[in-house]
């Protein structure tokens, strides 16, 4: 029960606690790094290097007035912020962190992540719709259009991996990469997946549903206190899920690069998975510091005119090569 095997209580506790702590700490890490990238200090007052800033933020949010607008649809208004963190934590459950470390080992793991990503869009949409505010509605509309569109290419972009590894199971996908990571044969799949994943979790530069320059704060305009906090923490858990999913799908998951394995396979696996995940987490912060938000029509035409053909051609070529090699 308390051993290192998939689904043991120890594993569930470990993944839940580490996943949540990393997601929460990402708020501080992101602000600190954004400060560093733009030659500022960032939060540095609470504790050493400002590391307890998140606790101060959480205290502030919990003690704020939790206001439910009288003109809103209260039932939906309360439910909407809960959906995002729940489904994001559920999709963290299928991620294989190391051999024997993980919460679930589903043979449809990849589809599970997609199902959860599909449900996550309800949080944005219902939140915006229930607020009964024009700006919220505009944000929710943007979110809905963006998520439906980018889900399509996200789905097609990973089909190349399913063809190469012959499985939907994330553990089998990692094991199929022992001879070489999928980043080399699936480079275009990786590009499409990463961009679509960022759009799906509406991270900067794809945070048009929030778009604070035009529509105040978009879908979460009417939210305050911990309800807003749930939207925010859900977004950060989504970022962590994406940063673990990219290594698993394209960079060999827990497999060590160049044979740099050490200790037993769990320790080595956790180290390399952690290193790869951290790289992508920092990378997403860098992207946020470097890029500007596109206009909505640019976002749509970029998706449908560049990403969709690219992912389709990638799928076609992968299928053709695999069939040719099979003879």
């Amino acid at each position, binding site marked *: 029960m308390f051993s290192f095997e998939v689904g043991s209580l120890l594993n569930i506790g470990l993944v839940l606690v580490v996943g949540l702590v990393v997601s929460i700490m990402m708020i501080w890490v992101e602000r600190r790094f954004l400060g560093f990238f733009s030659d500022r200090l960032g939060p540095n007052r609470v504790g050493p290097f400002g590391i307890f800033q998140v606790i101060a933020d959480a205290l502030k949010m919990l003690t704020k007035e939790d206001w439910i607008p009288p003109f809103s*649809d209260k039932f939906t208004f309360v439910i909407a912020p809960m959906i995002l963190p729940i489904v994001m934590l559920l999709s963290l459950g299928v991620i294989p962190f190391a051999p024997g470390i993980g919460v679930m080992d589903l043979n*449809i793991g990849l*589809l599970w992540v997609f199902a959860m990503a599909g449900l996550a869009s*309800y949080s944005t*949409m219902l939140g915006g*719709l*229930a607020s009964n505010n024009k700006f919220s509605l505009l944000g929710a509309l943007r979110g809905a259009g963006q998520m*439906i569109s980018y889900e399509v290419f996200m789905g097609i972009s990973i089909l190349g991996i399913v063809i190469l590894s012959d499985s939907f199971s994330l553990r089998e996908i990692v094991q199929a990469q022992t001879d070489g990571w999928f980043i080399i044969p699936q480079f275009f799949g990786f590009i499409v997946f990463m961009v679509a994943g960022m759009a799906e979790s509406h991270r900067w530069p794809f945070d048009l549903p929030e778009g604070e320059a035009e529509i105040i704060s978009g879908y979460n305009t009417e939210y305050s206190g911990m309800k807003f906090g749930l939207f925010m923490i859900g977004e950060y858990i989504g970022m962590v899920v994406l940063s673990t999913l990219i290594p698993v799908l394209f960079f060999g998951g827990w497999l060590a690069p160049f044979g740099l394995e050490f200790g037993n396979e769990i320790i080595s696996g956790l180290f390399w998975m952690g290193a790869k995940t951290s790289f992508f987490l920092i990378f997403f912060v860098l992207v946020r510091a470097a890029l500007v938000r596109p206009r909505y029509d640019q976002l749509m035409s970029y998706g449908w005119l560049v990403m969709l053909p690219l992912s389709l051609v990638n799928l076609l070529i992968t299928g053709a090569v695999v069939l040719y090699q099979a003879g």
Partner: protein
Amino acid sequence: MSILFYASAIISVLSTIMVITRVNVVHALLYFIVSLLSVAVIFYTLGAPMAAALEVIVYAGAIMVMFLFVMMMLNLGQPTIDQERAWLSPNVWIGPSILAAILLVELLLGLMTTDATIAHTMVEAKEIGIALFGPYVLAVELASMLLLAGLVGAFHLARK
């Protein structure tokens, strides 16, 4: 497993009843999503995880999002709720209730007479693929033609 099955079956029936009786269309949609999710759990307990995942991805994750998207465009407010409430008068229930009751009796009779046990064979993704592109390839082609026709039609309408 059978507890899971009965629990999700009860949830799906209750949430579907709620879908029909809600006057607020957003609430009805939320219950519909719950109903779809519980049907997905039923698929899973019956040994079809692929069908369960597709149920969530396609129905709950895509089609319902489209419904919600259209709903946001329509600007439904209090007038719609009042109209729904007026339409949902008790008189309307009589006909459908009688018909549904007959179906229920038939279903119960069928369940009692036949020895129906839950089949416990897992249907993997590979088998679904082989079935779809083997004996059912004609259905797949027809569905893709239908979708293409829809796509062309939407494109034509959007160009005007």
